[in-house]
C-alpha cells in the first residue's frame, strides 16, 4: 500500500526513513516521526476499531491523549502484548505490530453487529444487563462473548521479557506539559535556580507550537521550542522528561509520572538496543510547587452520525497536516463555533486538497482567521451547522442546516454537501483532569464556556488550562507561573524575554455542544457524546427522563466518561446535554470527578522491580539452609519461610504430607523431635517498671514471677478480646523476655509502645525487638532430656530444672538460654542461642540425636501436637471476638489484680457476660475416619429447614496419629455445658457429619507428660 494521504513537503517526519509496520494483519509503511495514528491515516485506513456497545465502525478522531477510538493492542509477540495503547500516542517504529482491541473477528465485518441490531435502533443504557441477565444461568455464556466482542484489550499470557523501574524525586517546581505555557514556566523557574522537572506526554516537547500557523520572533514557533529545550537540557537544575505522562496528582503535591523509555523504538527494550535497561519507568515526585500546564482539548460537536470514520476534531486535522504531513481526506467540511478552528480549513487548503465549506454556527463571525478564509475563497456558511453526517463505512456527505441556538431547533433549509471528512470544533476544554485527582472540583468559567481547575494548594495552573487562550497570553501566563513558583521556593526573579507573537484578533465563540436535528434526539440518527463508551445524546436525555438529575448519577447510568477515556472529549458535551434536558445551567448540573490515571499505565511500570523474587521480602531463619538441604517443604507464615514438614523418601517414594506428619507426630510422642521455632516474636523488655507494665498488658499476674521462671500470658485489647499470647520469662527483676506469635510480633511491639507512650508515659520501661537475634530450637519428646544432657553440663533434673523454669547454660560449647516450656504436651526444652551459632548447635543436636532417632518436624506437626493438647493458636482458634473466658482460660485471668489492666473492664460488659456466648471445646467426629473441615458450621438440629441456626464453627481440625482418629477444636454456643452432646456439620455436598462435644484436651489431660 502506498501512503496516499502523505503530502510531499512539510511536517516533522523524516521522509528518508521508511518504517514497515503491521496493523490488523496488514502490512503498511510509515515514516520516522509518525505516530501509529498518523501512519494509518497516511495509508488511508479509515476503520480502526468497532465501538464498545453498538459495534459501529470507528476511525481516528483526535491526535493526542484524548483519542477515544484508536485504542489498540500492541505487541509483535505474546509476551510483549500491551493493551489500551492510543495509536495517537504510540510512536511508529520498524516492525510495530498492532491490532484493534474492539472488533472480533475483525473490524471490517463484525459479528457483534447483530447485537447492535438486536436492540433495534437504540440500545438504552444498561442494555446488556437488562437483556442478557435472563435467564441468569446464561449470563456467563453471553458474558464471555460480549466481553470478547467488546474487546477491552487483553493481558499477555506469557511473562514480560522487559524490566521496569521506579525513581523517586524531590523538586522545587514540577511543570506538567511542555507547550508554550509549560516551556515558558520551566524556563523562568529554571533560570531563577529552582530545581525543575518538566514532563510532556508527547514524543517531542512543544505541544501546540509544533503545529501552529503562528510564528514566534517572526519564525516558525518550533524554532523557539528547539532553542528553549536546548537551554533547559543544558541546565543542571532541570530534568527533562519527554514521553512522560503525569498520570496522577495525589495528596501533598505527590505526582506520578509514567515515562516510556524504549516503547517508541521497538517491541522490547533489548530489541531497541537497550538490553538490561527499563522499558518504562514510574517517577514518584514530591514537588514544592506544581505548575499545571496541560493545555486544552478541543470539543467535538455532537451531531447525527458524528462517529462515522471521517469525522474528526478540527485541531487534529491541523496537527496531522502540519506535524505529520498527512491530510486525512480529500474533501473537507468544517463545522465550528469559534474562530480558532478555521486554521484547519486553511491548513487543508494549503495542503492542496478541496475545502467544500466552513459551516459556522455564529451569525456574523468576523475574526482575523475568518477574514483570511474568506479572502482565500473558502465558502463560509454562517448561522448553520452540520446536523448529520452521511455515509456507511466513511463519511460521504454532510447535511447542513441553519440552526437557532437559543431555541435549539433547526430553522432554515437543508443543504447536502459532498465530502469525505467533517472536522468539527465546539470550543476548547481546559485539561483539568490532574487537578481533579486531588479532590477539588473544577470551576465553571462562563466566558470560556469551560471548566478551569479548582484551587489546589501548591499548584499553579498556567496557560490554556487556566483559560488563557491566544499564544501571547499563554506564554506570558507560563512565565508568570514559573516566576511565582520559583519565588515560593525561595528563589529570586529571573530575567526572561518572551518571544514576540503576531497579534491576532479572534471573534467571540458561541456556546454549541449538541447540534439540533429535525428529529428529536431519540428519533434522530445517533448523536454520540462519548465515543469510547458509546454514550449518545439520546442516552443522556433518557437518563434525565428516568430521574437521574445529578451528573454523577447520569454518568453511572450511561457510562459517560468511564474507563480509560475518563471523559476527555465527551464530559462537557454530556453535561451540557443534561443541563439542557433539565433546564439548568452547566455549573448547576455540576461536573464529575476525574480519577487517576489520566491515561492507562502498564502494570509493569506500576510494579517496577517489585516482582518475581522482589515481590515481597522473605524472611529466613538462621537454619534455613539446613531445612532446604533436608528436603523440607515450606509454609509462608507472614513473610517467614517456615519448614512445613520434612518428607522422607521411603523405598524410592516420597512421603505425602499426611504420611510425613503422622511419622513426625509419633516421633515426638514416642521419642524426640526438634522444631525450628526461631520465628516466634521476641521482645526484650527492661526498666524499673517493666514488671508493673507486664501486669497491665497481660491478663494474668506478674508480680511474683521470680528470675528464672517463665509464665504463659494472654494479651487482650481493651474490649476484652484476645489479641496475642505467648510466654514471658523473667530474666532479672527489671528485665523480661516476651515471646509473641510469629505473625503478631510487629503488632505487639507497636501495641506495647502505644500503651506506654499514650497512656502510661510515667512508667520507666523500654522495648526492643530481638526476634532475629536469637534462634530457637525446640527439643521435645520423652527422650529430650537424654539428648540434651549430652550437650550441656546444666542439671536438667526435673526437681532442679522444673517445668516453666529457664536457665542460662552452655549448649554445645555455646552460651544459651534453655526454657522448659512445652507447646506439644511432651517434655520439652526450648534452646535459644545467638542466631549465628544456631546451625552449629542444631548440627550437634543431630550428631548426638541420631541414636535417639531425633526427628525434625515442621509447622504442620506442631499444629497437630498442640491441638491434641487443646492449646490455642491466636488468629486460628480466635478471631477477635473471643475472650479468655470463652476459651475457658479463667486460670490466666488476674481478676483481683489491683490495676485495671487492659481488657479487664470489658470482661463485665453485658455482651461478654451473656450466657449464650460461643465457648471453646473439642469435637470428636463419630466416624473416626472423618477429618472435619476447618470453618465448617455447627448446628444442633440437622432436620431444621434452611436457613439453619448456626451454633458455632470448627477452628482447627486434624487427623491424630496418636489417637487414630480425626479430632477438632471448635467454638460452640454454651459449649462447656454441652459436653457429650452430639452436634451436626452439614457440608456443601449434602452430607452431614456428626460429632461429639468433648474437652479440647485430647491427650494427657492432667499434663503429666510434660512434667516428667
Amino acid at each position, binding site marked *: 500500500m502506498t501512503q496516499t494521504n502523505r503530502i510531499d513537503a512539510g511536517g516533522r517526519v523524516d521522509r528518508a526513513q521508511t518504517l514497515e509496520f503491521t496493523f490488523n494483519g496488514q502490512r503498511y509503511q510509515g515514516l520516522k516521526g509518525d505516530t501509529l495514528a498518523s501512519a494509518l491515516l497516511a495509508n488511508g485506513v479509515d476503520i480502526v476499531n468497532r465501538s464498545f456497545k453498538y459495534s459501529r465502525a470507528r476511525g481516528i478522531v483526535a491526535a493526542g491523549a484524548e483519542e477515544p477510538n484508536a485504542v489498540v493492542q500492541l505487541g509483535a509477540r505474546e509476551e510483549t502484548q500491551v493493551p489500551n495503547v492510543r495509536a495517537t500516542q504510540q510512536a511508529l517504529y520498524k516492525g510495530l505490530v498492532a491490532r484493534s482491541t474492539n472488533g472480533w473477528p475483525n473490524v471490517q465485518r463484525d459479528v457483534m453487529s447483530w447485537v447492535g441490531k438486536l436492540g433495534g435502533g437504540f440500545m438504552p443504557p444498561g442494555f446488556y444487563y437488562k437483556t442478557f441477565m435472563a435467564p441468569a444461568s446464561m449470563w456467563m455464556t453471553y458474558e464471555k462473548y460480549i466481553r470478547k466482542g467488546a474487546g477491552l484489550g487483553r493481558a499477555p499470557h506469557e511473562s514480560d521479557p522487559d524490566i521496569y523501574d521506579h525513581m523517586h524525586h524531590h523538586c522545587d517546581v514540577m511543570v506538567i506539559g511542555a507547550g508554550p505555557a509549560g516551556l515558558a514556566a520551566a524556563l523562568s523557574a529554571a533560570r531563577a535556580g529552582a530545581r525543575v522537572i518538566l514532563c510532556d506526554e508527547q514524543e517531542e516537547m512543544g505541544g501546540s507550537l509544533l503545529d501552529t500557523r503562528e510564528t514566534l520572533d517572526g519564525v516558525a514557533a518550533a524554532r523557539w521550542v528547539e532553542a528553549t529545550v536546548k537551554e533547559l537540557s543544558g541546565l543542571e537544575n532541570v530534568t527533562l522528561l519527554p514521553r512522560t505522562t503525569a498520570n496522577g496528582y*495525589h*495528596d*501533598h*503535591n*505527590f505526582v506520578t509520572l509514567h515515562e516510556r523509555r524504549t516503547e517508541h523504538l521497538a517491541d522490547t527494550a533489548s530489541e531497541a538496543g537497550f538490553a538490561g535497561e527499563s522499558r518504562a519507568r514510574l517517577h514518584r515526585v*514530591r514537588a514544592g510547587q506544581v505548575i499545571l500546564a496541560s493545555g486544552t482539548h478541543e470539543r467535538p460537536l455532537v451531531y447525527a452520525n458524528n462517529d462515522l470514520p471521517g469525522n474528526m476534531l478540527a485541531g487534529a486535522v491541523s496537527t496531522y497536516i502540519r506535524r505529520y504531513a498527512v491530510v486525512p481526506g480529500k474533501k473537507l467540511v468544517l463545522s465550528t463555533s469559534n474562530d480558532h478552528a478555521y486554521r484547519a480549513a486553511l491548513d487543508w487548503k494549503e495542503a492542496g486538497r478541496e475545502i467544500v465549506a466552513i459551516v459556522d454556527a455564529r451569525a456574523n463571525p468576523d475574526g482575523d482567521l475568518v477574514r483570511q478564509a474568506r479572502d482565500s475563497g473558502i465558502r463560509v456558511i454562517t448561522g448553520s451547522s452540520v446536523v448529520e453526517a452521511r455515509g456507511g463505512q466513511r463519511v460521504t456527505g454532510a447535511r447542513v442546516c441553519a440552526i437557532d441556538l437559543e431555541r435549539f431547533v433547526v430553522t432554515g433549509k437543508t443543504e447536502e454537501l459532498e465530502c469525505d471528512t467533517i472536522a468539527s470544533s465546539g470550543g476548547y476544554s481546559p485539561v483539568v483532569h490532574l487537578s481533579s485527582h*486531588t*479532590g*477539588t*472540583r473544577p*470551576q465553571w468559567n462562563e466566558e470560556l464556556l469551560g471548566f478551569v481547575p*479548582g*484551587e*489546589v*494548594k*501548591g499548584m499553579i495552573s498556567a496557560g490554556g488550562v487556566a483559560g488563557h487562550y491566544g499564544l501571547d497570553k499563554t506564554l506570558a501566563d507560563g512565565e508568570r507561573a514559573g516566576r511565582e513558583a520559583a519565588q515560593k521556593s525561595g528563589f529570586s526573579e529571573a530575567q526572561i524575554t518572551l518571544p514576540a507573537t503576531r497579534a491576532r484578533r479572534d471573534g467571540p465563540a458561541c456556546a454549541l455542544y449538541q447540534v439540533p436535528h429535525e428529529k428529536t434526539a431519540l428519533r434522530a440518527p445517533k448523536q454520540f457524546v462519548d465515543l469510547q463508551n458509546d454514550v449518545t445524546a439520546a442516552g443522556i436525555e433518557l437518563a434525565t427522563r428516568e430521574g437521574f438529575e*445529578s451528573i*454523577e448519577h447520569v454518568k453511572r447510568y450511561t457510562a459517560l466518561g468511564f474507563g480509560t477515556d475518563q471523559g476527555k472529549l465527551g464530559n462537557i458535551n454530556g453535561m451540557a446535554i443534561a443541563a439542557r434536558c433539565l433546564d439548568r445551567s452547566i455549573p448547576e448540573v*455540576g461536573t*464529575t*470527578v476525574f480519577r487517576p490515571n489520566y491515561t492507562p499505565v502498564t502494570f509493569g511500570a506500576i510494579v517496577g522491580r517489585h516482582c518475581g523474587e522482589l515481590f515481597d521480602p522473605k524472611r529466613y531463619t538462621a537454619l534455613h539452609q539446613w531445612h532446604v538441604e533436608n528436603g523440607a517443604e515450606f509454609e509462608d507464615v507472614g513473610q517467614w519461610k517456615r519448614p512445613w514438614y520434612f518428607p522422607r523418601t521411603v523405598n524410592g517414594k516420597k512421603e505425602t504430607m499426611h504420611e510425613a506428619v503422622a511419622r513426625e507426630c509419633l516421633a515426638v510422642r514416642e521419642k524426640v523431635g526438634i522444631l525450628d521455632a526461631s520465628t516466634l516474636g521476641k521482645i526484650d523488655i527492661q526498666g524499673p517498671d517493666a514488671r508493673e507494665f507486664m501486669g497491665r498488658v497481660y491478663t494474668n499476674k506478674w508480680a511474683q514471677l521470680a528470675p528464672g521462671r517463665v509464665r504463659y500470658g494472654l494479651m487482650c485489647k*481493651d*474490649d476484652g478480646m484476645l489479641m496475642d499470647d505467648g510466654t514471658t520469662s523473667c530474666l532479672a527483676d527489671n528485665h523480661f523476655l516476651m515471646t509473641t506469635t510469629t505473625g503478631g510480633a510487629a503488632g505487639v511491639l*507497636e501495641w506495647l*509502645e*502505644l500503651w506506654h*507512650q*499514650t*497512656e502510661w*508515659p510515667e512508667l520507666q520501661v523500654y522495648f526492643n525487638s530481638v526476634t532475629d537475634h536469637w534462634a530457637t530450637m525446640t527439643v521435645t519428646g520423652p527422650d529430650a532430656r537424654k539428648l540434651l544432657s549430652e550437650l550441656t553440663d546444666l542439671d536438667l533434673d526435673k526437681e532442679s530444672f522444673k517445668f516453666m523454669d529457664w536457665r542460662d547454660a552452655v549448649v554445645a560449647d555455646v552460651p544459651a538460654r534453655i526454657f522448659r516450656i512445652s507447646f506439644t504436651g511432651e517434655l520439652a526444652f526450648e534452646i535459644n542461642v545467638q542466631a549465628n551459632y544456631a546451625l552449629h548447635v542444631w548440627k550437634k543436636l543431630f550428631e548426638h540425636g541420631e541414636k535417639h532417632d531425633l526427628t525434625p518436624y515442621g509447622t504442620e506437626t506442631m499444629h497437630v501436637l498442640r491441638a491434641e493438647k487443646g492449646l490455642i493458636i491466636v488468629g486460628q482458634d480466635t478471631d477477635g471476638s473471643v475472650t479468655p473466658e470463652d476459651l475457658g482460660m479463667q486460670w490466666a485471668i488476674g481478676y483481683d489484680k489491683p490495676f*485495671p489492666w487492659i481488657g*479487664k*473492664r*470489658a470482661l463485665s*460488659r*453485658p455482651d461478654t457476660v451473656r450466657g449464650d456466648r460461643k465457648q471453646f471445646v473439642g469435637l470428636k467426629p463419630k466416624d473416626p475416619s472423618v477429618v472435619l473441615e476447618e470453618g465448617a458450621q455447627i448446628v444442633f438440629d440437622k432436620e431444621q429447614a434452611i436457613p439453619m441456626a448456626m451454633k458455632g464453627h470448627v477452628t482447627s481440625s486434624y487427623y491424630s496419629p496418636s489417637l487414630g482418629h480425626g479430632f477438632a477444636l471448635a467454638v460452640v454456643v454454651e459449649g462447656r455445658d454441652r459436653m457429650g452432646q452430639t452436634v451436626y456439620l452439614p457440608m456443601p455436598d449434602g452430607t452431614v457429619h456428626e460429632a461429639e462435644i468433648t474437652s479440647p484436651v485430647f491427650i494427657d489431660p492432667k499434663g503429666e507428660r510434660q512434667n516428667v
Partner: protein
Amino acid sequence: MFYIHCPYCQEYREEEEFHPRGQGHLMRPADPDNATDEEWGDYLFFRDNPRGIHHELWVHSVGCRKFFNITRNTVTYEILETYPMGEQPTITAESEKLRKEQGVQTADGGWQTIGAQPDSRALNEEISS
C-alpha cells in the same frame, strides 16, 4: 500519599513510614473498674467522624517508633499541624470557625498546608460520588 512531619524526628517523611492509629486524644476512663457500661462502651466503640478538622493519632512506625498527633482536614486531606503526645492542638474546628468568621488569614505553613485550601468552594459543597 501524605507527606508527614514527624515532630520527634523533625523531618518530613513519606506516609509509608507511618501507621494511622485512629482518633487522637482518646481518654481511657480514669477509673475503669467504676466506669459505667455506657462510659466504657463510648470509650471502646464510639469515634468522631467529622467532616473537616480531625485530630488523629499516628505512629512513626518504621522511623523513631514514636506516637504523635496530626490535625488533618478530612475533606482536603490537608495536614494542618503535627504535635507530640501530651500536647494539645493549636488548630481545632472551633478555631477554624472563628478564623473564618473573622476573616483572619493564617500563615502559609509550607508543607503542612499542601492540599486544597480549606476556603475553596469544594469544601462548602456536598461531596457526591
